[in-house]
């Protein structure tokens, strides 16, 4: 398999840039020069080639190099292929993803994997992996897919979820899973469960082992034996809405 394309940031970003149009339509077979012509929204309209030095051969993979903390909507609308970002990203990474994988090897800003402001639903597929921490509202309104955050997550993670999985290794902020209909929020670290969720039981969810094994083997995330063999407190909710969702909180008991 080809190493794919590499997009190296030519110079540090001086203002916010919206990368939502780079990977939102078929890109996996594009040559470097073709991808370089795609637009980037910024204070002044740019092309990918003006921001990045794009090289390599198409192979369904692309790696972004450089500090993209000011770059928003990285991997937005992704439907296929493998995207790796070697560093931090701005807001709304993976917004509206439908497939493929987006791996952020740094921190993600607010609303990673969330719905676009005008959309009723967020991610409908794919895997969004954040090796660092994520800002508030990760996975808001997601309909399907996986958001896995190796660090912590800000407030309102998984709020309004329709389905899918948000999995957080460290602490999660307030109002997690508020107004969710279905879906799983997995808390491997500290979590405060909203009062509209109700405790069901403490058990070992079999599906979680499959997800954790995949995160360990495919992405080398820090899945520990205690995560695999341990027990989880299951809370059903949000009972103020459909109530078919769950928060699975790892417990040492």
């Amino acid at each position, binding site marked *: 398999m080809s190493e794919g394309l590499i997009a190296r940031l030519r110079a540090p970003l001086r203002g916010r840039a919206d990368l939502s149009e780079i990977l939102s339509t078929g890109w996996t077979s594009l040559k470097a020069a073709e991808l370089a012509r795609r637009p980037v929204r910024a204070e002044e309209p740019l092309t990918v080639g003006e921001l990045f030095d794009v090289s390599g051969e198409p192979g369904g993979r692309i790696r972004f190099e450089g500090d993209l903390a000011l770059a928003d909507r990285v991997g937005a609308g992704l439907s296929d292929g493998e995207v790796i970002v070697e560093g931090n990203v701005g807001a709304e990474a993976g917004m509206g993803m439908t497939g493929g994988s987006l791996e952020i090897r740094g921190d993600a800003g607010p609303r990673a994997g969330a719905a676009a402001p005008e959309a009723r639903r967020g991610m409908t597929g794919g*895997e969004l992996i954040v090796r660092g921490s994520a800002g508030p509202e990760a996975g808001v309104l997601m309909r399907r897919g996986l958001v896995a955050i190796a660090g912590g997550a800000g407030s309102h993670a998984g709020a309004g979820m329709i389905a899918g999985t948000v999995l957080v290794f460290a602490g999660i902020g307030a109002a997690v899973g508020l107004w969710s209909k279905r879906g799983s929020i997995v808390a491997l670290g500290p979590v405060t469960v909203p009062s509209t969720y109700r405790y069901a*039981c403490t*058990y070992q*969810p*079999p*599906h979680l*082992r*499959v*997800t954790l094994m995949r995160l360990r083997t495919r992405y080398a995330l820090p899945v520990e034996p205690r995560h*695999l063999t341990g027990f989880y407190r299951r809370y059903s909710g949000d009972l103020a809405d459909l109530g078919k969702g769950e928060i699975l909180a790892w417990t040492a008991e």
Partner: protein
Amino acid sequence: MNIRGVFIEDTFAEAFTMRVARIIITARSERWAREAALKLTGFATSVIGCKCEAGIERELGTGDTPDGRPGQSVLLMTMGKDDMGKRLIERIGQTVLTCPTTACYDGLPGVPDRVGVGSALKFFGDGFQASKMIAGERFWRIPVMEGEFLVQEKFGMLKGVGGGNFLILARSADAALAAAEAAADVMASRTGVILPFPGGIVRSGSKVGSRRIKSMIASTNDAFCPTLRAVTTSALPEGVNSVLEIVLNGTDAEAISGAMRVGIDAACREGVVSITAGNYGGKLGPHHFHLRKIMSAEAPA
């Protein structure tokens, strides 16, 4: 051809195309994975009376299963595509869903021909079931009194081979059994192969049809029954007093011939007179496993 004094007949085993599914069962311990696998593969020796043929393919370590737990790989075979879904649903539903701590996965991922299993079993959840998409595959979480049963929505199905066989003709029942046990032992854990009969061994080999009852599909293979040597057209050489058969199914012809090679080699031991195979003149089954050709291959596969 002789192997350690055992004559290898110049004949072939005739086998059929069947459908095969691979079922991965995991559980909290090896004990419960095996319990489920044994129940799943129970009463599945022959499609003639059991509607399917099944056996444990091999034991799986924690590194070989989707959830990192101990597991068992089972092959289940049917004659037709339509049968496969029915057999999987009834057997997984009755034997794996019911077994403590188990989960059940498709062992043929990526195979295009797929049959719904979890999509039917989910209804046991009575509306409380939930699905989970993981890496593009849908799984069903069915709430049960113990906790949750996880089963994959669809299982892959391939064309496989059923009815590979060889017969061990021995001087005594003890010698036949010892040789058959030795053969079954070396064949049992080979990937892609199952031995669906008890312990992998058949004492009641059959012929097609019946001399007396037209509606019978199969009846005793009188030509190989030692007690009938004097009253039927016997195929038994002098000195043979007991015959046992090894029947094997597999995912492909290569798996069958490889297993037959090591099995026949193991069966060639003291007290065995000859090894032969069952066929129907080559007119019924498309797969022909010629014993001498298999045994003249340079090294066991």
